[in-house]
Structure formats: structure tokens, C-alpha cells
């Protein structure tokens, strides 16, 4: 299994969630919404480059808007490997959780 960082995992999940709208700014906003922590667009870009290099996501050139000054977006999409790797993490975690006994902290 590929080593995925925490942020990488979150961004990868966000890419899956956002589907057709998965590009830099949208991912950054969604991240903030979901986690309550703010993150800069350049930071998101870095993570995306890393994920793309690991071939967990792929990208294509998307549409342009007026705010972007006519510059096209780059839309990210999860690859099969990407999907499997987050899935695997989740499965792994669930397995672990299933073994955790009920605890009380009193």
C-alpha cells in the first residue's frame, strides 16, 4: 500500500467527493468547510502534484470562468489506484476499530 499522508488522504477524498468540480479553489474551500481548518490554495496545489505523481489522481483541463480571467481550471479525478488506496485505508481502519473493546473513562 502506498504511503499516504493525512492531508493527502483528505484531499484525495475531497477529489472523490467533488467529482466534476474538483479543482484547486473548490478543494480548498471544501476542505475548510469539512474540517474547519483553513488551507491555502498553493498548499492544495502541492498536495495535488504529489498525488498526481503517485498516480492516485489524474487531471484534465476544464472550463474557464470570468473570475479566472479566462484561464482554464484543471479538474482532478480519482484513478482506480487512488480509489483503492483510500478504500484500503478505510477498511484497515474499520478492521482495527472492530477489535477495539468498549472503554469507559471514568
Amino acid at each position, binding site marked *: 500500500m502506498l504511503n499516504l499522508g493525512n492531508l493527502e488522504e483528505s484531499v484525495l477524498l475531497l477529489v472523490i467527493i467533488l467529482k466534476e468540480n474538483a*479543482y484547486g479553489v473548490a478543494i480548498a474551500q471544501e476542505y475548510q468547510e469539512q474540517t474547519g481548518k483553513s488551507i491555502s490554495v498553493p498548499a492544495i*496545489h502541492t498536495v495535488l502534484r*504529489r498525488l498526481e505523481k503517485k498516480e492516485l489522481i489524474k487531471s484534465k483541463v476544464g472550463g474557464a470562468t470570468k473570475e479566472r480571467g479566462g484561464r*482554464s481550471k484543471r479538474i482532478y479525478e480519482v484513478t482506480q489506484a487512488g480509489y483503492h488506496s483510500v478504500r484500503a485505508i478505510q477498511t484497515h481502519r474499520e478492521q482495527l476499530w472492530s477489535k477495539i473493546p468498549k472503554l469507559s473513562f471514568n
Partner: protein
Amino acid sequence: MQPPHWADRFLTWYCHPELLDEVQGDLHEMFYMRLDEESPFKARLLYILEVLKSFKPSNIKSPRQGANYPNNHMPMIRNFLRIAMRNLNKHRVYTGINVIGLALGLACTLLITLYVLHERSFDRFHSKADQIYRVNQKFFEGSNLIEYSASIPWAVGPAIANDYPDITVTRIYQAWQKDPLVSRDEQSFYEDNLFFVDTTFLDVFDFKFLKGNASTALANPQSVVLTESTARRYFGDQDPVNHTIALENALDLTVTGVVEDVPSNSHFHFDLLVPLLNIGDIFEATGNRWGWEGWYWNPVHTYLVLPERYEAAQFEKELENFVNKNFPENLREGNFMLMQSLTDIHLNSHLYQELEVNGSEESITIAISIGLFILIIASINFVNLTTASSIQRSKEVVVRKLMGSSRRQLILQFFGESILISLISLAVAVALVALTLPLFERLVVVQLNLSYLVTVELVIAVVCCAVFLGIVSGFYPALLLSAFNPAQALRSVIGGGKKSLSKFLRKLLVVFQFAISIVLVIAAAMIYKQYTFLKAKPLGFDKEQVVMVPIRGTSIVERQIEFKQRLNALTTVISSATMSDILGKDVPNRPFGVKGYESRQDLPGLFTDHDFLKTFGVKLLDGRDFNIENEADSRALLINESMLEVLKDKDWEGQHIVWGRKGRPVIGVVEDFNFADLKRPIDPLVIGFAPSFISYCAVRVAPGEVSPMLAELETIWSQFEPERPFIPFFLDERLNQQYNSEQNISEMIGYFSTLAIFIACLGLSGLATYTIHNRLKEIGIRKVLGASIASIVGLVSKDFLLLVVISNLIAWPVAWYLMNQWLQDFTYRINIRWELFFVAGAIALLIAMITTGIHSLRAANTNPVNTIKED
């Protein structure tokens, strides 16, 4: 409201084109989004921040990552290299001249660098070099400096060791005024480099032991340590350890060790080391009359290792107390002990009683400036030649440009070519250095030990220097050529009237080159003349046909009269005189009591006998010569003219001068003669009798009888001293040797100035080709209109000769100023004569004329049809 423009441009500049849309688009989107919520200032600030944050490797464009088109750099560079090699090959003569010029320049500079490094590396091979100091002595009488000596009294060293137990002290004593005789079986040698040293010598200095043990080698009083080559001299291939050699045929010394020969960059070179422990026995054996524990006589070189807690200057202060505490009361006044760093000795110490003749900072400065000058001349040349040859390639440049080559690539290409040439030249230069090194070593009279001079740093530095030179030299052609306008270039009117600045620059460079060369030629000639003048200058006595026989320490000193009688009986001998010093080299100061002065005056005092004036042809001005018949004359004195000034009332008659404890009458005055070397004026001199001071016997030989006389002399010698080798020398030869080092410098400048002129001519030739190439059409038209070949040659050469004339006008005052400065150091000096300047200038002009003449003649002879058919 828009994001800051400059930040945007920065982003566009660095960002990978493929990612630009995404990054810039996203950032803009964020910016406009923020504009709705926040202040414009904050939005802009955040935008800038994000642009900076995006400046990271994953976003930055790199040549490797490639743009949308395939990477094409390697084939291009390969093409550059191929074109460069083809070009060099095609213009073989040009390449040859260029490489030769640059290689010569580099070789000179390399040799000089090695020399300078060698001179600067002196004594640094000792592991404690930074902590070792020599103690010097300064002796004042009132405010007059009487003596500033590298050697100090015997007792100082041990007293320092006693007062400051953490300081290691060692002393060197080199037998004074007399070379000890060392023998083994049948062979014996005078060992002028036998050092008597304290047992601590090897704790202070590092010398590598090949045989024996450094810590015990000098422990035994009767031991001796030999250098490798000395050991071979006495023992051949045999192991010398535990064998004995005899000192003065009286004292047996056991060899306890063999060390490597002293490196050439040491300020002293011993052949044998003998412990100072038995110096009493040694004095006994060598018949030295002075004590060896005193505070007055100062023949001992003393070195100490200063522990880190002391600063040298601070310890010097300490030594003032030391003088007051230890020296006898009458020697404390005006007596100073000074510290000199070991590594400073070779270049900056020229004191009385140095162990060897030291180098000088001056000769290093001269060497460095010559090296720099030649390097400058060579690189100017390189620029001129490269420029000249590159104009012929304008078409290639233009075609490249039309094919889409950028200016940067063109510049890169020309830089590459000039770097290639400079690296080839460097290789040739290294070969030249290897070939000429022995010659150069003879010229500067040093032995360069390459194994410690050539370091990795030096190699890197030299290669970097060559590359740098290539870049500097390629700079101008690269910029000039890459700036060509294709349309103009194809019509081949490059370098026409418009580029007057660059033309001027090139002319300036040629003027500069020639000026430097002319200055060097004048300097070499003047220095040579000055030393020939010194050698030929009448000294006031006859130095020719005089054979000097060293007799100090032999039984002949006691039997002088008998020895001289035997000599004078020979028909080949005109006369002979015994004497204390070598006349014309140096006569040391000795304390004389002169009336009218409270204390003793240190004045040069020569001791000889009644045949002195006759033997040396010194003229008597007043009074009378010593008379052998008159017994009282052995206590009389002669003085020279200058001494008259010192005497009371400037009158000699009836005056007495005190030597020893007795006043001695002055019986005559002799004409001034140069008893010391010619760098000094003639000082007052006292001439007297003192048989125990006698060191030499000077023999005047009848003309043409030198070799029979030497044979007879040797026979007589062996009757007196059968055990000792007979080693006479000729006075004039010995005196001429005094100026050898200076003459070597002039020879060196001479060689280098020839080279400089040669290289400058290569440069001129390059410039001539360039200019003539540009004027070919003009020349063609002139010919068509009926100009003669001679007039064309004149027309073309005129400009260049003008340049050389201007160089002369610049060089003369500079050379005059420099040489005038240099000559100020001499008491006896030549006048600066203008003929010399004219001759140097004329030579430069002539050579320049020949160089340009060849080129212009070729241009004048071309068929006009070939040159004006284009356009």
C-alpha cells in the same frame, strides 16, 4: 481592482507553462473571492503571499521538465562542439597563433606562480611554524643603531629557557669565519654547513629521520646527524649509523642519524648537526679564542617555541625586563631583543649575520607584476585574435540566427569556443612549463619542489583561471557577433564605420600591450647595464690576478712569515699579503678608540701586513706605508681618506687610534677604495696589524702564470698542511658573484620582455588582419583607380605604426619613473640615457612594421576582381 501586476509577472516568469493556467487561475479566483469579503489591501497582500508560496519546485519551470516541444539541447551542444573543432581546424594558422600566444602567456604566469608560491612557502613545513620565533638583537649607542643582527649572544638562549620554563629554546651556531674540516679515512671536506645545535633543535624544527631516532640522536656530546646526501658523500651506500667521522682531525663524532636533505624552502640548510654540548672541545679543536658563555659576542642564532599563552609582541616587552635582569650592567643600555616570526624570515629579514642570503619581497613583487603583465598581454591578444577571426564567420552566425537560434545560444557558442581554446592552451602551457622548468630554476636560482607546490587547490585554481580567461576573452566577440543584424551581416559590411567604439577599444588594447612590452625591454636593459657597470667599476684596488687562500684555523696563521717567504720566493708571485677579510666584499666593524669621542667607535677595521698596498695596488696619498724593517710599524695604522673626516681636526699627523688597550700611531692615509660591496658608499677604514685575525692570504700572480703558480702554491701548502685540502679562489670571481642574484633578475625580465613583445606582435597581427579584411573593398577600388602597391602598404601600415609610436610615448615616462626609483638604491649608478629608450622603441616599431607589412602586402597584392565583385 486587480491582483498586483508585478506579482503576476513574477508568477508567469517562474511558473511551468503547463501549470500556469491552473495556478494563476486559482489564485485569481481566490483573489476576487477575497475582494468580496476583505479589504483590497488584505486581498492583494494574500495574493502576493500565495504567489510566493507557489514558488516551489513542483511549480517552477525547468529545462528538464521540458516544454511542449521535445528537448533539443544535447544535439545543439554537440553541434557547437563540432563546429568549433571544424573551425579551429579550418583556420589552423589562426588557432596556432592563438594557442601559442595564450599558452606562452599562461606558461610564464604558471612558472611565476610556482616561484611566488615557493618563496611564500618558506619554513612552513615545520609543524610548529606559527609558534616559532627567532630572537634578533638591536644595539643602539645613544640614538645610533650600531648593529641589527640575526644572531645574539651565547648566553641569551639558556637564560630564556631558565626564566621561562615553558618556552622551548634552541640555538644554532655556525662556525664563525671558518669552515670546519670533517674527514673520514682519506676523504676530507670543509663543511660550511655544519651546525652546532642544542639538543632541543629537533623539538623545535621538524626534519624527517631516515635512520636513527630523533629523540636521542643529539643526546650524546660526541654525536653527529647527517643529511642524506652528506651521508652518501662520506659513506656511499653504506649505512653510516654508528660509524665515526673526525672533526678537525681531533674529535671523533659518531653518526647517530640520517635525515632527509633540508627542503629548498628552508631559510637554513645544514649538512651536519653536531650537539653544542661539547662546544668547549670544539673551540679547543678549532682554535677559537672567544668564550662561549658570554653576553657580548653574538654569533648564535636562537629560536624559541612560544606557547600559546604569549603574544609575540607581549613577549618582546617581557624581554626588556629580561635584558635588564640578565645582561651585565655595561651591556644593558640600548640593547634590545626582538622577536621575528619564523615564516617571516625568508622574505622580510635582511639583517646582519643571516644564516643564508634571504629572498626579498621586492623580487616577488617584480615577479608578480611581470606575470600579471604577460597574462594581460596574452589575454588582450586572445580577444583581438578571436574577434578578428570571428568576423569571418558572420555568415555562419546569420544562418544560425535565421534558423531560429537565440542570442543566448550564440553567446554560449562563442564562449564555449574561447573556453575550448583556453583549455587547449592551458594543456600546451603545462607541457611548456614541464619543459622549461629546469631553465627557469636556473634563471631565478631556486629549486622548486613540485611535490609540495602543486596541490589540488592550485590545479583547480589554474583550471578555473583558464576558464575565466576564456570567458573574459570570448566576451567581446560573443557580444559583437551575436548582435549582428542578419540583413546587414549578409551584405558583409560588419564592423564598418559605425562600430567606432569597439575599434577604439581594440586599438587601446594594442597600445597597452606594446607599452607594457617596451617598459619591460627598457627595464631589462637598464638593470643589465647597471650591473655590468658595477662589475666593471674600478674599486680603487686591483681585483684581477689575485688568488685568495683561506688559512684561518690552520697552522699557517702562526707561521705566516715563513709561509709568505716561501711564496715570495716563487717567480710566478709578484707579492702577497695576509688579511682578515675579503677585500671588496665586506670588512666588519670593530671597536676603535678615537680621540674626541667618549666611547669606542665601531668602524670597519682591516687587518693585514706590510705588503697590503703593494699587493692590491692601493694608492698612498699622504704619509708612508708600513715598513718591514721598522719593528714599531707592526703597531702602526693606516687610514683611508674618509677616516680623516672622523678624526679630530681632520688631521692625521701625530694622531693615535686605540685598538685593544694601546693607542697606535697613524702613519699614513690611503686613497678611498671600495672595500665593501658597491651598494654602499665608502666608509671610514682603519688598516692595521693583528696576526690572530688573519683569515686569508692574498697572492698577486704574475700575468699568464696562474696555473703554474697554483701548482707551486699547492706544493707549499701541502708542506705546511698535509692534512687539509687546498681550496683557493680568485678574488674577482668571488666579487662578481655578489651581483649574481640581481643579474638573474635582469636576465629573467629580459626573457619575459622578449616574450611579451612576441605575444604583442601576435595581437597586432590579429588586429591587422581584421582591419585589412574590412578594407579589402577599399583597397580593391584604390587599385583599380591606379594606386601602387607601395602606397597601399603605406596606407594600411600607417595606422598601426602610429599605435606603436603612441605606446612608446606612454612607455617612456613610465619606464623612466620606475628605473629612476630603482636606481635610487645604489650609491654608484648609471645615468638614465635616452638612447636606450629610443633603441627599445625602435625595436618595437621595427617588429611591428614587419608584422603589419606582411599583412598589408598580402592585401595589396590581391586581385581587385576578387574583392569588389560582390555587392
